[in-house]
């Protein structure tokens, strides 16, 4: 499943808007063992960034204690029409991107 993004399609200039993201990922901690005693290797997302028309407005580092399918919600000020770009990266070269547009009036 691709990432889920919720950005308001329209906003007034200066409005505080909420952005929600959810991406599917197992977030394997690296602390668990299989039934036969083998360590399950760590496989997590380590970093998330959001850019608004190219400028980074939000960044988060993720750690093993974060549950599967990380859900992040944060706020920003609607300044201009354009594009939000989201990027998740992590273990084993994991990388995933998504984007959403906004019209600011």
């Amino acid at each position: 499943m691709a990432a889920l993004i919720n950005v308001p399609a329209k906003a007034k200039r200066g409005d505080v808007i909420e952005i929600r993201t959810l991406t599917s990922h197992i977030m394997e901690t690296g602390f668990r063992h299989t039934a036969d005693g083998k360590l399950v290797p760590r496989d997590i997302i380590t970093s998330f960034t959001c850019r608004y028309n190219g400028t980074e407005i939000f960044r988060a580092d993720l750690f093993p204690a974060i549950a599967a399918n990380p859900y992040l919600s944060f706020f920003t000020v609607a300044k201009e029409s354009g594009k939000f770009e989201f990027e998740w990266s992590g273990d084993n070269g994991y990388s995933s991107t998504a984007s959403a547009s906004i019209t600011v009036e």
Partner: protein
Amino acid sequence: MNAPVTRRNAVLGIAVAATSLALPSILHAQSAGRIIVVGGGFGGAACARALKRTDAKLQVTLIEPNQLFTACPFSNEVIAGLRDIEVQHFGYDRLAAEDITVVAQAATRIEPQQRSVTTADGVTLGYDRLVLSPGIDFHAEALPGYDDAASEKMPHAWKAGAQTLLLRKQLEAMAEGGTVAIAIPANPSRCPPAPYERASLIAHYLKTKKPRSKVLVLDAKDNFSQQRLFEQAWKELYGDMIERISLSQGGRVTSVDPATRTIITEFGNYTPDVANVIPPQRAGRIAEIAGAADHTGWCPIDPVTFESKLVPNIHVIGDACLGGGIPKSAAAASAQAKACASAIIGLLAGRTPEAPRLTGVCYNTVAPGYGFSLAGNYQSRGDIFAEVEGGTTSPVDAPRELRAREAAEAERWFQTITADTFG
């Protein structure tokens, strides 16, 4: 101005303390006590009965505003048009005949210090021990847009009765090819597998009457009780008629707009033809009035005696209590009711009650003649109940004869528990 009040309170306090110290010996001598039970469902009615049957000298009063109780188990079959609601109705005549005082009023105030309950008609009754079995109420703040008026357009049908019939009527009125959405809250909530049973039985109704229609499940959970059994049955019986959007697929409902019948989730809006919105829940309102509910909205209890952790001499059973691993079901409420009755009789006699071992069973019918079940054993561990060994769930791979047998067993279970509680 304050001083005399304080002094008076202090004097009153001493008087109350003296009375409560004297109470156990008086009770012991008379081998009687005044018990009030608030709420006449599977918990309250069973508890009142168990108290009176164990000790006929007890004065047991059951306060319940409804003359007729509408049972929730099997009400999903009423919604799907497979059962008449009259079969779900039970009265309190048998309880009254057993010398339980049945007061057909709503309890509106509880004074734990005075040990009294006041009913809507203004009558105040005193108790030695109070049992609250108020079931659930809805958490209005937890689902913006959903209030009593909204429930007339987007029925919850999570308290059986008029709401059950309203949802049925909406299904019957829906055009062929429509979508029925079911919004499911996170746990803890009443009867955790029941929303999935409902999705199944609504799919059965649609398959029979409006086969191009769909069921859309918007779920605030990723995993649910007996999930593999349900999902297998859905595939087997209904193909792709039921679509479920789980929590991690954005299924959690955050608000509703009854004017446009819109369900808003974290990541999308849905405008189904029929919207069955099951809102987040908490203990019945009277528990909060009594001061027995905490910030979670539920009632923390001592799992040995069911006595509230927050107010003395008040016991909470059934859906309203914070039970931990024990589900909020009719079977669990009934088991708790009996254990609570026995603990109260022990406490009145000055004995230390033993930790109960409770059994709960839950049947799900996903189509006529297709049922499965989960039976669990529960024991107190710390402040809650934990599931212990000995539980069983129906096998995932089983012949249809077993499903048919379990569907018949489910009906017998209903006959037994309702006879035990009301009959």
